C-alpha cells in the first residue's frame, strides 16, 4: 500500500507544478486547456483518492488565482476541472467493473471447463458402475444357480445315503427283535448289512474324491506318464473282475512309449472306473481298452458289448447320481458318482470325455488327455544294486514328506541303494534340521506350504544344496517290503484282512497287535477273533520283546505310528530271535494305490522331469557329483 502511494506521488505533484509554470510563464488562458490531456494521461491509471487529490489541487490553485484577482481564468476552469475529475472517476470505475467482469468471466470459463471435466468423469464412472453392477448381478445369478445346484446336490446325497442306511437300520432291527431266526436267514440279513455298509463306505469315499477334485484342494500331480503304464495298471486291477463274469478283457498297448500329461493315480482311476462300468453292464461278450495317439492329444477308449445306453441319456450319465435305470435287469450297486468323477478328472487334465452307444450293441466311452511334449525316459532302467559311493563319502539326503508311509517308502528305497537319509515331516522341521545336520540333497514333496518351500530353498541356496520337489504315489509292497510283509488299511474289512492273513493258512493263528489306538486295536481284535485267530495286544514299551517272546505270534500287526516310533518298534522286534521270519503287517490310514513311482520335477523348470525311482537316483547322482 505504501509503495503504491510513493509510486504516484511524483505524478500528483507534477500537475500543479506544471500548471504553475505554464501560468506564470505568461502563456495566458489559451494554454489553460493544453495541459488537460496531459493531466488526464497522468491521472488515468491513478486510484480515485489520487484523482480527487489532483482535482482538489487544481481547484485550490484556481481558487487562489481568483482570490488574487485574476478571476477570469479561474471562473472558466473550475467547473472543467470538477467535470474532468468526475469523468476520470467514472472511467476508473468502469475499467474496474470491466476488469471485474472479465475476471469473473474467466473464472466462469474455468468453472465451466472443470464442470465439463467433472461431468465426463461422472458419466465415465457411472458407466463403470453400470458395468460393475452388471458383473455383480451376473455373479449373483451364478451364485444363486450354484447355491440351488448345491442344495439339489445335498438333497441327492441325503437320498443316496438313506438307501444303504435303510438296509442297515431295518435289518439290524430285525436281527435284534426276532429271536427265532434260523441261521440261514440270520446270515442273509447280516450279509445285507455288510454289503449296504460297504456301499455306504464307497459312496462316502467317492463323495470325498469328488469334493477334493471340485475344491481343487488336491491339485492333480500332473507329470509325464507313459500311456502304456496307465493301461497296464487298469488291466491289472480289472482283469480278475472281468474273468469272474466270463468276459474277455483285452487291451491295446502302444508299442512305443507315448508320454502323456497325467496324474498317474487319477487317470488310472478313470480307466478303472470305465472298465468297471463296462464289466457291470456287460453280461456277455468282450471289453476292449484301446488307445489312439493324436497330434496333441492321446485318446483312451473302453468299448463293451453290453446293453447300451438309450439315446438322450448319453449326456446325463455324467451327472452326479444319474443312473441308467430301465434297461438293466438287476441294478448294479454303485455310488452313482463314478462317471462324474471321471469327467471332472479328465476336464482338469484339459481333456474331454464322451460316450457313443447303441442299444443292444454296446457302448464305447472315450476320453482324451494332452500328450507330453518332451523326451520320455526308457521304460526299464535297471535299478542299480548299490550306489557307487562308499559309506561316509556322501552326506545324507533329506526327505521332506508329510505322510509317514510315503516318507518311509522313499527313505527305504534310497537307503536300499546305499544312501543315508533323514526324514522331516514338514518344511518347518526341515529348516530346523538343516541347521544341525549336513545335508547333500533335499527331496521335498510339492506341498501347499509354498512359503515353507521357499524358506527352505533360500536357506540352502548359499550352500548350493540341490533341492528336488516331487510328487509320488506309493504301493508299498515293493519298496518297504524290507521292513514289512504286508499291509492292511482302514476301514478294515473282513476280506481284506483275510487276504493279508493268507500266508498263515496252515493253522497258525496267533497274532500280536502292537497299537496305541484303542479303536483300531479293538476292531482288529474283534474281526480277527471272529475268524478264530488268537489275538493279543502288546504295548510299545520296554516289555515289547519279552511280551512277544512269551506269546510267540505267527504274525505281528503294527498299528498306525509315527515313523520314529515305527523304527524303534521294528528294531525292537528284530532283536527277538523267535520272531525271525514272522510276517510283519503294517496298518495304513488309507488304501494304497499306484506304485512308488516318483513323478518328480526338479526345482528348476528347465530340467527334464524325472519319472520313476531309477531316473530319480540317476538325477541324484548327477546333482551330488556336480
Amino acid at each position, binding site marked *: 500500500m505504501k509503495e503504491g502511494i510513493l509510486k504516484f506521488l511524483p505524478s500528483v505533484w507534477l500537475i500543479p507544478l506544471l500548471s504553475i509554470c505554464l501560468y506564470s510563464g505568461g502563456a495566458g488562458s489559451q494554454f489553460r486547456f493544453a495541459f488537460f490531456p496531459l493531466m488526464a494521461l497522468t491521472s488515468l491509471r491513478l486510484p480515485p483518492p489520487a484523482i480527487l487529490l489532483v482535482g482538489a489541487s487544481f481547484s485550490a490553485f484556481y481558487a487562489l488565482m481568483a482570490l488574487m484577482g485574476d478571476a477570469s481564468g479561474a471562473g472558466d476552469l473550475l467547473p472543467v476541472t470538477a467535470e474532468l475529475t468526475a469523468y476520470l472517476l467514472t472511467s476508473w470505475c468502469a475499467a474496474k467493473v470491466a476488469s471485474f467482469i472479465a475476471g469473473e468471466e474467466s473464472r466462469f470459463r474455468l468453472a465451466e471447463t472443470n464442470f465439463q471435466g467433472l461431468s465426463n468423469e461422472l458419466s465415465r464412472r457411472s458407466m463403470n458402475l453400470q458395468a460393475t453392477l452388471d458383473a455383480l448381478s451376473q455373479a449373483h445369478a451364478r451364485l444363486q444357480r450354484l447355491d440351488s445346484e448345491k442344495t439339489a446336490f445335498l*438333497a441327492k446325497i*441325503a*437320498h*443316496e445315503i*438313506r*438307501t444303504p*442306511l*435303510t*438296509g*442297515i*437300520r*431295518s*435289518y439290524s*432291527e*430285525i436281527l435284534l*427283535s*426276532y429271536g427265532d431266526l434260523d441261521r440261514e436267514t440270520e446270515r442273509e440279513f447280516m450279509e*445285507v448289512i455288510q454289503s*449296504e455298509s460297504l456301499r455306504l463306505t464307497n459312496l462316502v469315499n467317492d463323495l470325498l474324491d469328488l469334493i477334493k477334485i471340485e475344491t481343487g484342494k488336491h491339485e492333480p500331480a500332473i507329470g509325464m506318464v507313459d500311456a502304456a503304464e496307465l493301461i497296464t495298471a487298469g488291466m491289472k486291477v480289472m482283469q480278475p473282475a472281468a474273468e469272474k463274469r466270463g468276459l474277455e478283457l483285452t487291451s491295446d498297448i502302444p508299442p512305443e512309449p507315448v508320454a502323456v500329461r497325467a496324474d498317474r493315480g487319477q487317470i488310472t482311476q478313470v480307466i478303472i472306473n470305465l472298465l468297471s462300468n463296462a464289466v457291470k453292464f456287460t453280461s456277455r461278450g468282450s471289453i476292449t481298452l484301446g488307445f489312439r495317439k493324436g497330434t496333441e492329444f492321446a485318446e483312451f477308449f473302453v468299448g463293451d458289448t453290453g446293453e447300451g445306453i438309450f439315446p438322450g441319456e448319453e449326456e446325463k450319465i455324467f451327472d452326479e447320481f444319474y443312473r441308467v*435305470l*430301465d434297461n438293466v435287469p438287476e*441294478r448294479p450297486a454303485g455310488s452313482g458318482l463314478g462317471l462324474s468323477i471321471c469327467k471332472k478328472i479328465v476336464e482338469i487334465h484339459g481333456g474331454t470325455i464322451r460316450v457313443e452307444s447303441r442299444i443292444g450293441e454296446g457302448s464305447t466311452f472315450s476320453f482324451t488327455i494332452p500328450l507330453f511334449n518332451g523326451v520320455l525316459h526308457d521304460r526299464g532302467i535297471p535299478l542299480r544294486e548299490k550306489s557307487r559311493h562308499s559309506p561316509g563319502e556322501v552326506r545324507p539326503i533329506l526327505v521332506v514328506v508329510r505322510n509317514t508311509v510315503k516318507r518311509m517308502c522313499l527313505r527305504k528305497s534310497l537307503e536300499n541303494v546305499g544312501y543315508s537319509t533323514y526324514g522331516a515331516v514338514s518344511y518347518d522341521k526341515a529348516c530346523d534340521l538343516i541347521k544341525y545336520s549336513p545335508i547333500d540333497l533335499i527331496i521335498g514333496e510339492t506341498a501347499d506350504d509354498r512359503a515353507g518351500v521357499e524358506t527352505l530353498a533360500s536357506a540352502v541356496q548359499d550352500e548350493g544344496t540341490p533341492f528336488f520337489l516331487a510328487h509320488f504315489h506309493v504301493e508299498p509292497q515293493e519298496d518297504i517290503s524290507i521292513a514289512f510283509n504286508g499291509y492292511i488299511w482302514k476301514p478294515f474289512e473282513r476280506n481284506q484282512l483275510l487276504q493279508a492273513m493268507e500266508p498263515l493258512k496252515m493253522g497258525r493263528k496267533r497274532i500280536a497287535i502292537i497299537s496305541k489306538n484303542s479303536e483300531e486295536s479293538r476292531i482288529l481284535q474283534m474281526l480277527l477273533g471272529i475268524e478264530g485267530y488268537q489275538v493279543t495286544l502288546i504295548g510299545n514299551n520296554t516289555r515289547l520283546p519279552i511280551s512277544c517272546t512269551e506269546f510267540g505270534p505267527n504274525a505281528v500287526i503294527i498299528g498306525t505310528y509315527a515313523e520314529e516310533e515305527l523304527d524303534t518298534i521294528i528294531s525292537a522286534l528284530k532283536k527277538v530271535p523267535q520272531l525271525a521270519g514272522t510276517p510283519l503287517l503294517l496298518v495304513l490310514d488309507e488304501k494304497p494305490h499306484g506304485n512308488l513311482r516318483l513323478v518328480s520335477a526338479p526345482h528348476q523348470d528347465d530340467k527334464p522331469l524325472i519319472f520313476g525311482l531309477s531316473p530319480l537316483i540317476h538325477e541324484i547322482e548327477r546333482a551330488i557329483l556336480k
Partner: protein
Amino acid sequence: MRETDILVVDDEPHIVRALSFIFSKAGYDIETARNGEEAEAKCREIAPKVVFLDLIMPKMDGFHLCRQLKSANGSRSPHIIILTCMGQEIDRENCMKAGADEFMTKPFSPREVLERVHQLLASDRG
C-alpha cells in the same frame, strides 16, 4: 378277486425283502412289485388293503401311481403309505396332494411301520 393285505412296491430288493419279512412274520398276506407299472397291474389283480410305495422307481414313479390308484378306485382305493428317501417337507406335501394316506421316510424302523399298518387295518374293521 383275491384279497391281499399289503403290496410292497420298491426297486431296492433289500427293502422289499425286509418289509416282506416283517409283514409275513406278523401274519399278513403280502405281495411285492419292483416298479410302478408292475404295481398297477398287481393292484388290479389282487386289491391290496395297504400299498407301501417308493417314490423314485423305474417305469412309473410313486406320485403317478398314487394318483392313479386313488382316482381309479374312489372310496374303495387302498391305503397308500409312501416310504421314501426324499425327506423334504415339499415331498410330503406333494404326496399328500397326490392322495397318500401316510408319508414315512427311510431309513425306517420295522416296528413303527408294523404299528402303522396295524392301526390302518384296525380302523377299517372298526
